[in-house]
């Protein structure tokens, strides 16, 4: 109980200290969006020949005729009441648009992180066990190449190989093809919803559709994860407790997994948190390549037509997720290493 309590207090303190940062993000985004060229009122007026009066009416509706500080105060008040404004592009409240699209982005990013971890941790462990060998160099080469290929290029090349050449992957547009009947949305994660609905064919189709974009994102982040696993495994393998465990005759497998890896996993958790936040933000490119209906492509579309509210909402959402992920990392830290809570 004691350690959990300490962890929670630490997490709460951390959360409180991140509030000013969130506030800064809000204000900064607001100012940035207001210097965007192009008048949204003109854009969303009935047509190119809309009269001056009509544009003025829309400006009034949007509150764009008020002084800037007043607009900011109104915006902050609205955000405080969970009102992120209305998107001119979709005509819906931004909060609702984001809620509908966030599961798509989260499903993609989480799958990608999972794929990356499944590949990176064994690679890192292997490289550390056989450090200096051909395996180690191979892993290093793979990592160096992985961070050099931009996701939009690797995504397209994967489409070429798996869709055009091999015909293994489905048409790379969206989460399912248009003829599939969607399962009732419980979680918004299609792979889970299909399973809940007991629709195995649908589940398989969704998994198929998810595979290439997830692989594309994973390829880009395997490198930092494998590198940190290797570095931290090397430290842990060289330490006294591993030597002791070996000397008392424990099996090699047991020493590596329960002794060395368990102690080497902390930095991997930290980096996973950072990687997750970064992936969620830089999703834009992958979502665009695969026409994935996530939040990032929503924000990009809005940005290109100077629709303020969705972009502000998106950035706020990303910054909040960033804070939440950091908190989760803190809590995981406490679970993985009880000593971390003493400090």
């Amino acid at each position, binding site marked *: 109980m004691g350690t959990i309590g300490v962890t929670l207090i630490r997490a709460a303190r951390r959360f409180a200290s991140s509030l000013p940062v969130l506030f*800064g993000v809000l204000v900064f985004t607001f100012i940035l969006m207001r*210097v965007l060229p192009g008048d949204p009122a003109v854009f969303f007026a009935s047509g190119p020949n809309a009269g001056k009066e009509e544009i003025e009416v829309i400006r009034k509706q949007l509150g764009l005729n008020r002084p800037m500080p007043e607009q900011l105060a109104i915006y902050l008040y609205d955000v405080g009441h969970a009102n992120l404004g209305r998107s001119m592009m979709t005509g819906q409240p931004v909060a609702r648009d984001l809620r509908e699209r966030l599961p798509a982005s989260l499903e993609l990013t989480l799958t990608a992180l999972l794929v990356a971890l499944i590949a990176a941790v064994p690679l890192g462990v292997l490289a550390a066990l056989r450090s200096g060998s051909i395996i180690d160099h191979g892993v290093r080469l793979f990592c*160096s190449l992985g961070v050099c290929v931009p996701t*939009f290029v690797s995504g397209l090349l994967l489409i070429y190989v798996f869709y055009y050449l091999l015909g293994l992957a489905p048409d790379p547009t969206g989460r399912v093809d248009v003829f599939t009947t969607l399962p009732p949305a419980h979680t918004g994660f299609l792979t889970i919803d299909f399973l809940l609905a007991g629709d195995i064919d649908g589940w398989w189709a969704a998994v198929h559709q998810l595979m290439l974009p997830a692989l594309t994102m994973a390829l880009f982040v395997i490198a930092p994860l494998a590198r940190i696993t290797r570095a931290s495994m090397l430290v842990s393998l060289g330490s006294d407790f591993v030597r002791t465990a070996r000397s008392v005759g424990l099996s090699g497998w047991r020493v590596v997994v329960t002794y060395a890896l368990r102690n080497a996993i902390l930095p991997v958790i930290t980096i996973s948190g950072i990687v997750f936040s970064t992936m969620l933000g830089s999703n834009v490119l992958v979502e665009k390549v695969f026409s994935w209906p996530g939040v990032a492509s929503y924000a990009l579309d809005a940005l290109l037509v100077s629709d303020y509210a969705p972009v502000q909402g998106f950035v706020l959402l990303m910054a909040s997720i960033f804070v939440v992920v950091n908190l989760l990392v803190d809590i995981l830290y406490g679970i993985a290493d009880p000593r971390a809570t003493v400090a």
Partner: protein
Amino acid sequence: MSSIEASSTLRHTAWVLRGNPVTAVAALGAALLMLVGIIGPSFVPYDPIASDVPQALQPPSAMHWAGTDQLGRDVFSRLIVATRLDLAIAVTAVSVSFVIGAVIGSLCGYAGGRLDRAVGRFVDVLMAFPLFVLAMAMVAALGNRVENIVIATAVINLPFYIRFARAEVNIRRNLGWVEAARACGENHLSVVLRFLLPNVLPAMAVQMSLNLGWAILNAAGLSFIGLGIKPPTPEWGIMVAEGARFISTGRWWLVAFPGFALMLAVLCFNLLGDGLRDILDPRMRT
């Protein structure tokens, strides 16, 4: 720097390069890329923006080494010409944030106090943004021009340099030789600029080489989504974006070659950065 010191640095560099041929190759590759960027455009076989529609979408051949695009333009020539623009954007952006970051960061690290806290808060806010999205928003806000890609890339690099310089100066500000400089009557500005900054620069230069690769990816990503550089201009990101439409019909060369160019450039700068770190890291000198 005395000649003994210089020759020892040279010997050390040579020793490191011998032990680490990858760095030597990366340095050569980076130099070659720079050379292509500078003189390449004068030697290309075809005009990079002249269309030749009957020759459209040809696969690589002896005539067109990297094939032709949907307007019959020679992909190889466009790749070569694009090198200058892509490298110039990355180098300018990283240099700008290097200089600004070094000055702001070292002033904060030296002075501490209110300035340090204010800048620290600002950096925290910047780092809480999804950085690519911040760059997108800035290019959209400032206008769709090449200069603004440079500015956006510089701004998203800035937090790293500020933090780096701040930390490095902060741990040195009370060391003996800094005290000595102050005791000799140097004013604070001169202590920062003439004594502390030169000691921090080498480590920051390594960071710069590592960041160049990231800046290249970033700029190409922005133009891939249609921000910054406008279509007829040859640029790696745009070339991939234009080729994307033809990938599901099997025209791989439109994506693969510019993608390869991007990869090669980033790889060279990354490996060079890693190698430079080995050269500068004092622990390697023993």
